[in-house]
């Protein structure tokens, strides 16, 4: 598996706590990281298509509360979850290095 793109990681994060449909993923990214971080619809579907082909995500049954039955929901596969965990660990290690080198100053609350 080559290096994970930021978008792939963001999508994995968005799906970590709940199954979401395409628009839901975008909304989640926008809410957490700001509207600038949201990918174009085309870019997201390119990522979704690859992630599904790579077995990181899969289609999930729509929840009964779904406002539109035609929407497709996505969920993490076990492989997707472990990839997300591995990437998180990798990033956390990097952050630890950054902190040790005083690149990351703790914000005073």
């Amino acid at each position, binding site marked *: 598996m080559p290096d994970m793109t930021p978008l792939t990681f963001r999508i994995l994060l968005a799906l970590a706590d709940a199954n979401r449909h395409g*628009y839901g993923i975008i909304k989640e990214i926008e809410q957490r990281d700001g509207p600038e971080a949201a990918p174009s619809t*085309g870019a997201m579907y390119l990522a979704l298509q690859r992630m599904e*082909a790579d077995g990181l995500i899969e289609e999930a049954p729509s929840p009964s509360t779904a406002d539109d039955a035609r929407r497709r929901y996505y969920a993490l596969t076990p492989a997707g979850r472990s990839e997300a965990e591995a990437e998180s660990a990798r990033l956390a290690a990097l952050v630890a290095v950054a902190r040790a080198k005083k690149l990351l100053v703790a914000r005073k609350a």
Partner: protein
Amino acid sequence: MSTRLIEVILRLAPRRFRERYAAELLSVYVERTGRGRRNGRWWFDLKEVLGVLRLVTKLHLDRGPGAEGTTKRGGGLMVDLILHDLRFAVRTLRRNPGFTLTAVSVLALGIGANTAIFSAANAFLFRPLPFADEDRLAFVYETNPEFGWTDETAAPANALDWREQVAAFEDLALYSEWVTRVTHVADGEPELLGLNNVTGNFFDVLGARAELGRTFRWEETWDGDDDVVVLSHATWVSRFGADPEVVGRTIDIGGTTVEVVGVMPEGFVFPNDRVDLWSPFGWPTENRQAVWFRRAHWLRPVVRLAPGASLAEADAQLQVVVSRLSEEYPETNRVMGAGLAPMRDFMIRDVRTPLLILVGAVALLLVLACTNVANLMLVRGAERSREVGLRTALGAGRARVMALLLAESAVLSTLGGAAGLGLGWLGVRAMQGMTRLGIQGATGVALDHRVVLFVLAAAVASGTLFGLGPALRTSGAGPADALKEGGRSGSPGAHRLRLVNTLVVAEVGLALMLVIGAGLMVRSFLKLRAVDPGFATQGTIAVQFNVPGRYQNRDEVLDFERRFAELLEGRPGIERVGRIGLLPLAGTSWSSQFQAEGWPPERIGFEILHRRADAGYFDALDIPLVRGRMFGPEDEPDGPLVVLVNETFVREHFPGEDPIGQKIAYDRAAAANPQDSYWYEIVGIVGDQHQVSPGEPARAEVFENADQDWGRDPWFVMKTSVDPLSVVPAVRSALAEVDPLVPLAEIRRLREVWQGSMARQQFILTLLTVFGAVALALAAVGVYGVTAQAARARTQEIGIRMALGARGSKVVAMMLRQGLILVGVGLMLGLVASLLTTRALTTLLFSVHPADPATIVAVMLLLGGVASLACYLPARRATRVDPVASLRAE
């Protein structure tokens, strides 16, 4: 629009992706745009469109052999190699942003212009019509050499005979080319609807079914069964709230109650988008035998050919029937002919030539753009001959080197294509904005998958066109070249220079053709504008409304009009008021033949036009009374019938005679039985007004007195002492005072009418001028580039000359001479090509010859001047170089 664009682009994605994700992607896009994204909407859309383009490209790149569904992407050596070349090309181009930007912009201009024009051509030439089995549909038209008719509407009795007697016609339907305005009152609010009268089989012949309810039955063509209507989809949605229960409801139109029996599906727009509802004619059966039913021509017949019948067969059978009819009814059909044309050919007969001209012009522009980019690449190739030589020395085959260079063209043309698609999209929107100028059918201009495919083809073709030549040249550089010709400054070799020179000659020649075309249109348009249309276009305005059927007879209608006119005259700003049946320059309505009292039976006046007018019309629009008298109070509604005629009428029909006091009747048999005809006395002669366009001479015309020959759709014209549009509220309130349930149908300044009559010329003129300007700029860039390159290559030589005491002006002259020889050759070749091609413009030009010497000379001077400047600037710069510095450069 952008949703549609994304939809179209997605259609190009691999099927596997499309089936699983396309609909979902689109709905997410729609949701994202739906959130009140007002600001930056444009930017957002652009990013979205580019995102989808990138998606589709990547998906195709991912689909290397054996790559599907696996995590490994790109497999296969060939794909790897191509990807490598492409990546390398992108890197190289990124390092040369100036070159890349120029090349991409030039290509985008060429491809964009082609996209826009192709969208228009596509709408007319390729987009399927909304009818079943379109290729079995045809129009029938009537011809008459005596009247100069070539594609006239038909007389109903003739068409009904064809319907019964031509076996190759499965069926024939008739519809009126006029859309009648009727007042529909709903909840006390009046509104105008466009009504189109048709025969009962109209929808069946076109193969159209109702979305709700039913269409008409053939029997409804006849005998008062006409109190039924079918609604258009748009009207059903906008005026009836898309109410599914509308079928069976009765509505009031113009004072009569009709029943809605059906609603047509979306997309059924015929004969045009002004039709809100259709209604059957409901003719009395005895019309079939009436002479006027065979004499009056106002209906358009459309036929569905029998299965297996060819157009030629049908036409042959039609001709047999036509000649039989002309024997049977000599009074009306003596010289009447008929013809048959495939539906689409007939519908686009007026736009075909202009479209083809524009298609030709943009194709030239694209070739010019490609030439330009080829030139740029050659110049760059010169600078890269060392790199190429080195690669060859290291063992790269020529094919590999060429592949590398072609990858660059591929990247450039892809970028140019993408940017061109964007530009073309803007162009399409601009053209849609021009529909207000009256380009009929331009509403159908839109991007669809055909247009996108066309852009792709254009990009690939241009990439090959501009890439192959330079790649062949540059890749031919052997290891020795790297050291030999190039040297440090990398000057072009002789063979390369020859190609560059050829390209510059081509650029100048192509640009000359385009600019001459634009110049001819400009000159023609100026002449057209200079024609006096025969009436005041400034400070004048006209309004129209429909006097509803509640006003039952002539006196009630005339009383309505008189009260309205009196109210208007009392309003501030309105100076003079008049009535006319049809505005000048708005086309023609009906025409007829006439005889004058005392003429021998064989003398007949053909094709005179009619309008109803009052004295105020001529007064308000400053149309002079040349001789005789105006209509006056003595011409009472029931008194002797009087008419005015225009000067052309006098010239054509009473040459050397005095028409005043003559009596005429619109009946070619009037001389034989005068007691059966209505006779009109000519009381005055008025100035000509152009009826169709300033470019077409005024035709013979008779003005009936609007108080004696009345109608329900009068135009009121006004001369105002203030801005004409500022009186509109006063006009509205005056109309409301007469009857609050009568809405204004039309408000048009006479100036707009005048401009509208030249809209087509203006449309083509605008486009050709834009293309001409772009061509001029491209040629200038080309000439500049090649001179600059030559100057750079000769820096040392110039330095030595200057150091030896040559004056700067001499050196400039030397360089100029070389550039100007190329320009001159280009101009000459372009001139020859122009003389061969501008003839295509003949039908669009007004009183300008396609080889108009003044235009050609002016354009050549302009182009020559611009090109000389493009030569002079770099030459001049070369002499500014410090001789010492230039020598040290080696």
